């Protein structure tokens, strides 16, 4: 038993070391290789189907390998996915397009590292777009690790577009106010004054000595706001307080789990006004936004993996059930 364990772990380590030393960086499959891989995957699924249909189920580990392959390989494929832009993503983009240069945007980062895969790509795309169009960003977080995520998003945007790094200055083009505890209470107080909740920024620079914040006292001095949220406090709280009470123009990016609960806010209310300008929902929302900015990046790559994984799960359910019905019929 022990020996087999050692061999397997040895193989795993060898695999990763081989990747580290010998793989091309970055690695990318050609179009035909990608098609071939998809074809092979489909063939493997057919094999699993036939096997299961005959009553011999494949083991857990084989299922794991399938999922692993479906998740990893799409990273290296280049495939134009037919993305239809949903109206709620389009309206976020349109609202951004309408902003004149030097407009001030309040961006609240209300998520933590575990939900970063879904939200980070859209945050990066958003930052990149804002800096390229000379929009000023005021960053804050209602979750403790949110401001760090914002920082990482900015660094990633700089790596993707090195020109921005020269052009963009902290304190003038963006500022990171950091985290404040107190959930929706923070939003409520910000309606009166930002400074009362954030007397200094993340690096302890006093609020008043930051050039970007010079004429910013509360929501009324902000032209647009964006909220990246993975739960509570998040978009629902921003809508209920900042939008409903202080008429802040708000758009949001949400995790897939959150998104369904946010949809009601996108409906036009009795006064014909939407509470939320638009919504980037999950990985798909991020990918659509990237497509609109014509700079496909992480979310687009991720979405391919995500779609493959979804299809794999659906196929597994179907295979399992076909076998199940055959068995049931056989018993009758």
């Amino acid at each position, binding site marked *: 038993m022990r020996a087999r364990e050692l061999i397997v772990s040895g193989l795993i380590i060898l695999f990763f070391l081989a990747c580290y030393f010998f793989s091309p960086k970055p690695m990318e499959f050609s179009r035909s290789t990608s098609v071939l891989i998809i074809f092979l995957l489909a063939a493997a699924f057919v094999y699993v189907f036939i096997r299961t249909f005959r009553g011999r*189920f*494949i083991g*857990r580990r084989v*299922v*794991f390998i*399938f*999922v*692993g392959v479906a*998740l990893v390989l799409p990273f290296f494929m280049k495939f134009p*996915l*037919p*993305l*239809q832009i*949903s109206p709620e993503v389009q309206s976020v983009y349109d609202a951004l397009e309408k902003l004149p240069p030097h407009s001030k945007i309040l961006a609240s980062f209300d998520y933590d*590292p*575990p939900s970063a895969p879904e939200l980070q790509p859209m945050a990066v795309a958003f930052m990149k777009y804002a800096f390229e169009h000379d929009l000023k960003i005021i960053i804050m977080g209602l979750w*403790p690790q949110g401001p*760090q995520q914002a920082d990482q998003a900015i660094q990633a945007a700089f790596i993707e577009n090195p020109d921005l790094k020269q052009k963009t200055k902290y304190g003038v083009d963006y500022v990171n106010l950091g985290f404040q505890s107190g959930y929706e209470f923070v939003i409520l107080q910000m309606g009166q004054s930002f400074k009362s909740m954030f007397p200094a920024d993340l690096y302890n620079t006093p609020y008043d000595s930051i050039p970007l914040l010079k004429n910013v006292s509360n929501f009324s001095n902000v032209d647009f706001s964006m909220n990246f949220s993975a739960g509570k406090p998040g978009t629902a709280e921003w809508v209920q307080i900042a939008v409903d009470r202080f008429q802040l123009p708000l758009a949001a990016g949400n995790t*897939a789990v959150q998104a*369904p609960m946010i*949809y*009601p806010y996108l409906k036009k209310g009795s006064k014909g006004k939407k509470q939320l300008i638009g919504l980037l*929902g*999950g990985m*798909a929302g991020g990918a659509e936004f990237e497509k609109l900015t014509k700079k496909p990046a992480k979310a687009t790559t991720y*979405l391919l993996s*995500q*779609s493959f*994984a*979804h*299809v*794999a*799960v*659906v196929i*597994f*359910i179907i*295979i*399992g*059930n076909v076998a*199940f*019905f055959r068995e049931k019929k056989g018993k009758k």
Partner: protein
Amino acid sequence: MKRQIPIIITFLIGMIMIFSFFIPPLEGLEQTCSLFFDVIAVFAFFLGGGNLMRIHLNKLRRRKKDWGFSIVTLGGFFIMLAAGLLKIGNPGGIAASPTTEGSLLQEIFTYVFLPLQSTMYALLAFFVASASYRAFRAKNREATILLIAAFVILLGRTPFGMMLTAWIPESFSVLQVPNLAIWIMNSPNLAGQRAIMIGIGLGVISMSLRLILGIERTYLGDESV
């Protein structure tokens, strides 16, 4: 006496909390209770953490199976304790928040704790797939409905859903998978959520009353049950 006092405490506190909802001068009680709870939780941790240590020290002493891992667990525990209590490497010194960037606690958090936590979470992706293949069966009508709803959502949120049903004419666009997914979320899903919520609301009332009135007292270790 020993048995009566806890029941009286539960009854009194419970009643006060119920009525504080209607009596404005008692507004602050909720916060006080949550403060008390937080403080009690710290002391309870002395018991919990102590228990954790006892178990692993026992394993070590008796050289039980896998005792080596107990050293690792205890090591991790004490390193974290030392790093956090003494605020080792904290750029802000002893007065700063324990989770300041650059402190040892935060570095361990980023490079040890976070990858472990995220990967644990991520393993779920595999378990979900395995459960789909082996467990999610359309055993009866109910399970079938569950699976169909799940299909619609799964496909509806990817470009494949769009591709599959793009042929449906615009006037019936509700039937396209992505729109169907949104409809499910906004109608039947909403109804189900509501029924569950109302049920839970009523269930909690009944259970709370059983506890407050002392009818349910198993948790207090009452021997007369």
